[in-house]
């Protein structure tokens, strides 16, 4: 497959949410083209719709307007060609490590083959000795590794990662950056990676998209032309990160201002609500 094959095409995508306070526009007219084998990062203020966009690519949510095409075919449902790795790792506590990794393969492959694949992946993420452990026995970094192995088991062409390392300490995160880059370099997978950590985005991404505050739009796109592997503390990474941070700062300030304003109106509304209205509800 050629590197420049256009694989994911997001076209004029918008998303409204119905809430008790009326319609909320979460994403506004997003258009992105992503090539096969790219590593793309999304950064943006909290609540700008990054997760929503990822979920729509995964097929877990439907766009209000616009569409997403994969290899020219509109995405409408979840599919194992696009697997999500969630922030909280979302491992199943009632299964042990290897059963978690096998999860998506059950019913697709016979047991022996499944185990073989799962074992190989656990070795890849350096958890070979932990296949019988349960989720509560793992550290945060180990959970992230299992979640990565679980997603890779399905050999998806697109890997969607929603702040997968946000809860980890800097050392563990650094290690996982190396591992994920290695894995990605060996595979032909497209990765879409959401993060709040700008340096993480520069270290990992071939392109970084900065989103505006809600309603989320693409504010700016950065092409990261640095050789790999990249060091998170290298001069070049820091320079890119500063530029991106600059763009982000304005948006975060906007977001904070809106958030504070809303809080104020909510407080006022609470105060004005007549007492006793809730009596008898919930019976």
């Amino acid at each position, binding site marked *: 497959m050629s590197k420049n094959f256009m694989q994911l095409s997001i076209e004029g995508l918008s998303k409204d949410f119905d809430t008790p306070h009326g319609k909320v526009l979460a994403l506004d007219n997003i258009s992105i083209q992503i090539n096969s084998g790219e590593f793309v990062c999304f950064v943006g203020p909290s609540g700008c719709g990054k997760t929503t966009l990822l*979920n729509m690519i*995964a097929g*877990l949510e439907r766009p209000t307007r616009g569409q997403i095409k994969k290899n020219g075919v509109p995405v409408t449902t*979840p*599919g*194992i060609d*696009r*697997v*999500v790795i*969630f922030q*909280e790792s*979302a491992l*199943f*506590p*009632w299964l042990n490590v290897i059963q978690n990794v096998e*999860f*998506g393969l*059950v*019913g*697709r492959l016979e047991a022996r083959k499944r185990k073989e694949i799962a074992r190989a992946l656990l070795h890849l993420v350096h958890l070979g000795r932990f296949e019988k452990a*349960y*989720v*509560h026995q793992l550290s945060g970094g180990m959970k992230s590794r299992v979640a990565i192995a*679980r*997603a890779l088991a*399905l050999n998806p062409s697109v890997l*969607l990662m929603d702040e997968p390392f946000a809860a980890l300490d800097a050392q563990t995160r650094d290690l996982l950056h190396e591992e994920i880059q290695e894995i990605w370099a060996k595979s032909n997978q497209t990765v879409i990676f959401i993060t709040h950590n700008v340096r993480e985005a520069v270290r990992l991404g071939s392109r970084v998209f900065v989103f505006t505050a809600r309603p989320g739009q693409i504010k700016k796109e950065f092409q990261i032309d640095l050789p790999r592997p990249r060091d998170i503390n290298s001069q070049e990474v820091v320079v890119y990160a500063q530029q991106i941070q600059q763009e982000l700062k304005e948006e975060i300030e906007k977001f904070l201002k809106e958030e504070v304003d809303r809080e104020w109106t909510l407080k006022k509304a609470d105060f004005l609500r007549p007492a006793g209205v809730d009596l008898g509800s919930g019976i």
Partner: protein
Amino acid sequence: MLIWEAVYRIGFWPPYLFPSPWEVVKALFWGFQDRTFLLGTLVSVRRILIGYTVSLLFGVTLGLLVGRFKTLDETVGSLMTGLQVLPSICWLPLAILWFGLSEQAIQFVVIMGAFLSIAIATDSGIKNIPPLYIRAAETMGVKGIKLYIRVILPAALPSIATGMKLGWSFAWRSLMAGELLFVSIGLGHLLQVGRELNDMPQVMAVMLLIVSVGLLFDRLLFARFEKRLRQLWGVAA
């Protein structure tokens, strides 16, 4: 035991109302000697095992359905919570009218006592599953009935286990209440016989038996099961 003996020695209550521990142990011994206690225990345990199994099957199934279908939730769901307020022994008159003075009538009371709490716990377990689990499963291509069996049911298990434990104690209480009011051989009935004969040691001995059987199952089965689940879910036991 010592306190019991001490209170007995003080002689505040006459011995026929407050027997010494020794009398109670003797009553236990004689009860088992002439087989009535053994028989009573076996009959009661058999009843509860049947009643509880039926309650479990009904309760979990109903809970799953109510947790899944909105229309069922709005109708049957609120009925469930309403009926749960009713102490299960209040079903006895109805059960006797429907089934007569029969084994089924007692079973009916046991089931009404247990299955609602199991159903309610299952239902709330399903409603409280982190949506993340379901999304994770969907993104890995698991949906429909498989999603139910492989994710929703196991994810709701801690809550179902709590319901099962609660259901067990309700079932046991309902059974004893039923047997008290009912001519049969169970432990509850032995209690009643003891009262009729003014045999305080027997009454106390049977009470002890009832507590022991209840506790035995609770410790042996449910406590272990719950502990294991709590471990898996990473909640400190």
